[in-house]
């Protein structure tokens, strides 16, 4: 059932078994897993209220559906090395391994409206969809993304949540604090408020904060009943280790083999789903160069003046069983320049000559990278002096990158240059901003992927939640979302957010004796 907070009596005490704060990918995934069970769920959806960054009240969307209301749909798994403790990456290592998430991947695929599971090179080669360019497998791995619809969780799952007897969604209800027992070992209730002054409390057996990498630490920090440092913050870890995925254009590729490179690195379609191809440093290369993980895709700018480029795009569409994009435009281009096409094809296929000068299909290639950021305790979210519409302190972000982050990008680009050069595949040129260790990242930008601010750790001194996503030292408070990632790899976070949320949901089902 979905309702407005304005329909709740002012000062009411609402009871539930499970209270979920936040209605994005994590919150809705959790809530829908309990549909039809004996567990009474209350889902609270809010309302709008160092380094240059996107305004914090824009980058995360605080209404039903959360940030899935404006995400791009890129889905992929973390790689095995992302979970490992790497002796060259301080503070690295998850207390769980990839095997903890793998059982939840099939359900994650369904929730995110994706096709057949597959994110590694071997899978797509076996399916006959990918012919890898012969780069040194000791240096680079092929990696893939699937593009979600993108699933807008608020729209996609609204009807199911509305029809559920045991799930109540409260819209425009903002959490103003978590109230605990004097020892701070358990949450007694949470306080809610609307922008027009209505107030209520929620009492539950278990609570999950699923409000994103900025709001989760904020709610812990402003809940000071038992400890002025905030909940779960005995070791000053809440809000620290803020990480992003810097998106950058670090290099270009100059190749004499453009079609083979493009065929290996171009987006393709499989059973109606869009698949993106990329490269990442192999685990061996990361270990040898002592670098972070990252991923590289190729921006392939076609030669729009070339009739052969349009013919190629039509052929690709037909081969993949889909209507080629801009099909009408391309057909028209072929029809109006058919003599050039026929002449070129005659030269190419009967005389074994190159395509005519000026009619090459590819204009140029540029690399695009998504970078892992090293866990950095000085990169953090904390409470500022400024207050929001509810009188609560606004969060402040002090996002910091290090030389290690930039060196990792540079070393991988050089390794790619070596890999392409070793097979006669071309030459790589690094962008000028990448040539030194300064804080200049050119026109790079963050991907609005917030990780690390309530990180998972085996030892309470190193993080905020344990391997079950429960706040260290607390009995009934859990956190869902990418804020629990100890390290972020290069993978867009939503896929792992959903898988982790499913894992947490099944843990809570057991704990709450869901029938």
């Amino acid at each position, binding site marked *: 059932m979905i309702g407005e907070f304005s329909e709740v009596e002012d000062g009411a005490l609402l009871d539930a078994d499970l209270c979920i704060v936040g209605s994005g990918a994590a919150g809705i995934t959790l809530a829908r897993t309990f549909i039809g069970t004996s567990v009474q769920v209350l889902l609270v959806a809010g309302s709008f209220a160092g380094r240059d960054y996107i305004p914090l009240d824009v980058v995360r969307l605080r209404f039903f559906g959360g940030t899935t209301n404006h995400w791009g749909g890129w889905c992929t798994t973390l790689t095995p090395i992302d979970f490992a403790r790497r002796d060259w990456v301080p503070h690295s290592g998850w207390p769980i391994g990839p095997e903890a998430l793998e059982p939840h991947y099939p359900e994650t695929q369904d929730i995110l409206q994706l096709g057949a599971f597959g994110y590694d090179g071997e899978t797509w080669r076996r399916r006959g969809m990918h012919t890898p360019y012969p780069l*040194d497998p000791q240096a680079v791995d092929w990696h893939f993304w699937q593009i979600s619809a993108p699933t807008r969780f608020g729209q996609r799952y609204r009807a199911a949540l509305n029809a559920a007897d045991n799930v109540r969604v409260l819209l425009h209800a903002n959490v103003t604090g978590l109230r605990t027992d004097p020892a701070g070992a358990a949450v007694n209730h949470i306080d809610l408020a609307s922008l027009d002054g209505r107030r209520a409390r929620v009492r539950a057996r278990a609570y999950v904060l699923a409000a994103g990498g900025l709001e989760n630490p904020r709610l812990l920090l402003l809940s000071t009943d038992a400890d002025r440092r905030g909940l779960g913050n005995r070791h000053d870890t809440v809000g620290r280790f803020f990480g992003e995925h810097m998106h950058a254009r670090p290099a270009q590729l100059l190749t*004499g083999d453009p079609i083979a490179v493009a065929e290996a690195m171009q987006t393709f379609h499989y059973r109606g789903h869009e698949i993106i191809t990329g490269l990442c440093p192999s685990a061996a290369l990361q270990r040898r160069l002592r670098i972070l993980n990252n991923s590289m895709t190729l921006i392939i700018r076609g030669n729009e003046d070339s009739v052969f480029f349009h013919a190629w795009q039509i052929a690709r569409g037909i081969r993949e069983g889909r209507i080629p994009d801009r099909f009408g435009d391309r057909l028209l281009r072929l029809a109006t320049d058919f003599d050039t096409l026929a002449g070129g094809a005659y030269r190419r296929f009967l005389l074994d000559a190159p395509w005519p000068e000026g009619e090459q299909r590819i204009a140029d290639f540029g690399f695009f990278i998504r970078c892992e950021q090293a866990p950095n305790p000085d990169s953090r979210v904390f409470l500022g002096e400024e207050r929001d519409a509810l009188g609560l302190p606004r969060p402040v972000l002090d996002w910091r990158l290090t030389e290690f982050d930039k060196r990792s990008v540079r070393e991988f680009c*050089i390794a*790619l240059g070596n890999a392409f*050069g070793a097979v*006669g595949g071309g030459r790589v*040129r690094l962008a000028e901003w*990448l040539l030194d260790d300064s804080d200049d990242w050119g026109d790079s930008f963050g991907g609005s992927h917030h990780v690390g601010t309530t990180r998972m750790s085996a030892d309470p001194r190193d993080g905020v939640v344990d391997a079950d996503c429960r706040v260290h030292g607390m009995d009934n408070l859990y956190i869902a979302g990418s804020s629990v990632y100890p390290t972020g790899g290069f993978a867009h976070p939503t896929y792992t957010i959903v898988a982790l949320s499913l894992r947490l949901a099944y843990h809570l089902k057991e704990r709450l004796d869901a029938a």
Partner: protein
Amino acid sequence: MGLVRISRRRVNAALAALGMAAAAPEPAGRALAEGPGPRGPDAGLPDCLPDCLSDPGGTRALGERYLAAFPEEAAALAPLAAEVRRAGAGGPAALRRAVGGRIRADFAAGQTVVLDGWVMARTEGRIAALAARGAA
């Protein structure tokens, strides 16, 4: 890195000949490195070296830039000149194959440098430097 910029067009032209050679099978590179023949810095460059360069002017400019950025590389030129001369005895095609193999081997072994952003094999830089020295 210095402020002197090597343009994409210049690198493209200068490396074109070597780039084609880079597709040669690796054994050709080994032949360049291990094959019999006279050695020594005084042996001179083979006459066919300029024939291997589609843009001799661009290659010389690249070589000058390479030596300016990595002056210690000058010591490696004499042994390479001997190898080039030996491989060049078989004509431009043989020289291209041999140099190409060596370039590929450099990339595979990580024997590369970054010059004004370009990731290039040391052999590429040294060949260009030889061309520059020859012109001087």
